[in-house]
């Protein structure tokens, strides 16, 4: 399976099952399309000659040369590569998995009242509550006990608003640091916060202990304050922006993300990204489409999609401009490492929810991920007894891209691994379903991300800094670099 598209002056061909990405000229673009359509070989050259009759530089010999290139890449397995992975996908139930990461819901309460919050203002459609140190301590022990020989363990302080239980966050990090060496583990803590509770003490702690922080900000003041309000209905922008700026400045280059949500009200979301970059000084950016009940006023619509596509392309082009100017910004969904990215096992198996990743409620219950918390049908167990609903865990083990009929003909299937199980459940009632709107947005983002990679490979102003993208010509293909 291949995917062809044109963007920003580039003709791009993606070979789905080899992972190859090709930048081609117009003739090759048309020739590949004819081969893909099953056109008899004898008919291809006449059709191309007819199409390019006003282009004297396109000769019969040129076309034969182009078709020879296509044949060579096909023989190398880099074009029209077959799907050789499906049989592996169904061994997944018997594979051994370890728990790699926990999402600690240290607070099921919040000091903001954001109307679009999937967590129902932090309470996840249940009772408010704070995680005790004892429950959190047991969760960390559960992670160590179930992580096998894995060295790095990820723990995210989440909510609700985790800083409403900051003392327990500090105690849990101190506990983890006290035991990690004896277990040959390295805890990597992250914090996801709305910013209201940030103090100098929080900044010092986060910059010492958290290798990454996610800071929630929707962009322009009027956009942010439309939804991100406190319980009295007051917007949060003026209170949180100075705190975020102080925290980021103090991080000294350590990881962070400004994480915004865009809705039907700000389909021009690049203006929010550019506001955060140009007016506020943030360079690590993420902006996510709202996932909410269809028909709600903030829900994105089919009519919004063309505008969203334009916005994603505009962002990609602007990021290239900024890179050339020596002032790059990072957009979460455009980060791709083509040469050293994920193996096919990762690309099939997906995010790890329910098997490698679990969410822990303030009361110690385990769920497949933070978006399932509060749905009793998806309770896996608890941190004292472990995973008791093994049938549910096995269902998530098998919830890979090959288990979703809706993904069968999608060119992006090995870039998303079948998408988000929670979004699928909420959109279709089945974790094996497909959240089609999210798929459309995802495919556009991957097209843009790949275009950036092509530009970085071919644009003479950018290529010297991206030598890793250049193909190794005539390397003999010994496999040593793999």
């Amino acid at each position, binding site marked *: 399976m291949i995917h062809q598209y044109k963007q920003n002056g580039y003709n791009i061909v993606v070979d789905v*099952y*080899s*992972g*190859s*990405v*090709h*930048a*081609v*000229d117009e*003739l*090759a673009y048309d*020739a590949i399309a004819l081969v893909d359509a099953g056109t008899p070989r004898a008919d291809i050259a006449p059709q191309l000659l007819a199409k390019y009759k006003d282009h004297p530089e396109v000769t019969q010999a040129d076309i034969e040369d*182009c078709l020879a*290139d*296509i044949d*060579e*890449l096909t023989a190398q*397995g880099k074009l029209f*590569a077959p799907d*050789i*992975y499906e049989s592996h996908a169904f061994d997944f139930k018997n594979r051994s*998995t*370890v728990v*790699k*990461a926990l999402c600690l819901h240290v607070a099921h309460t919040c000091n903001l009242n954001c109307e679009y919050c999937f967590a129902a203002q932090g309470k996840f459609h249940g009772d408010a509550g704070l995680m005790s140190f004892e429950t959190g301590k047991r969760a960390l022990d559960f992670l160590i006990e179930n992580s096998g020989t*894995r060295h*790095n363990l*990820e723990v995210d302080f989440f909510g609700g608003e985790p800083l409403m239980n900051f003392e327990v966050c500090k105690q849990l990090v101190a506990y983890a640091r006290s035991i990690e060496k004896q277990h040959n583990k390295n805890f990597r803590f992250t914090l996801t916060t709305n910013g209201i509770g940030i103090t100098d003490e929080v900044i010092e702690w986060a910059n010492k202990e958290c290798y990454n922080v996610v800071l929630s900000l929707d962009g322009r003041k009027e956009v942010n304050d439309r939804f991100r309000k406190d319980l009295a209905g007051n917007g949060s922008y003026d209170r949180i922006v100075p705190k975020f700026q102080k925290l980021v400045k103090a991080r000294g280059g350590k990881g962070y993300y400004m994480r915004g949500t865009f809705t039907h009200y700000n389909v021009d979301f690049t203006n929010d990204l550019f506001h955060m970059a140009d007016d506020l000084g943030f360079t690590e950016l993420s902006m996510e489409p709202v*996932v909410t009940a269809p028909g709600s006023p903030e829900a994105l619509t089919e009519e919004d999609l063309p505008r969203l596509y334009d916005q994603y392309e505009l962002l990609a082009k602007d990021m290239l401009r900024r890179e050339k100017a020596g002032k790059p910004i990072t957009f*979460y*969904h455009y*980060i*791709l*490492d*083509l*040469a*050293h*990215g*994920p*193996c*096919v*096992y*990762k690309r099939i198996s*997906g*995010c*790890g*929810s329910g098997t490698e*990743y679990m969410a822990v409620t303030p009361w110690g219950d385990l769920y497949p991920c933070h978006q399932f918390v509060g749905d009793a049908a998806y309770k896996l167990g608890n941190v004292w007894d472990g995973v008791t609903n093994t049938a549910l865990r096995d269902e998530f083990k098998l919830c890979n891209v090959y288990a979703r009929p809706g993904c069968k003909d999608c060119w992006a299937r090995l870039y*998303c691994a079948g998408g988000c199980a929670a*979004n699928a459940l909420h959109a279709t009632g089945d974790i094996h379903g497909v959240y089609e709107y999210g798929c459309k947005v995802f495919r556009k983002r*991957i097209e843009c991300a790949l275009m950036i*990679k*092509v530009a970085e490979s071919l644009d003479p102003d950018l290529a010297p800094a991206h030598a*890793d*993208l*250049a*193909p*190794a010509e005539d390397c003999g293909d010994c*496999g040593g670099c*793999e």
Partner: protein
Amino acid sequence: MKHIQTLNTRDMAKSLNNGGCGECQTSCSCGIANQPCEKK
């Protein structure tokens, strides 16, 4: 090749044999494709 330039990408078929170590992070809303391989 005159007509086609191929970027340097990880060979998916080969990763059947040299992948699957499980050292990479889980990957939530980086995403799968963005995930760096952490093989030792």
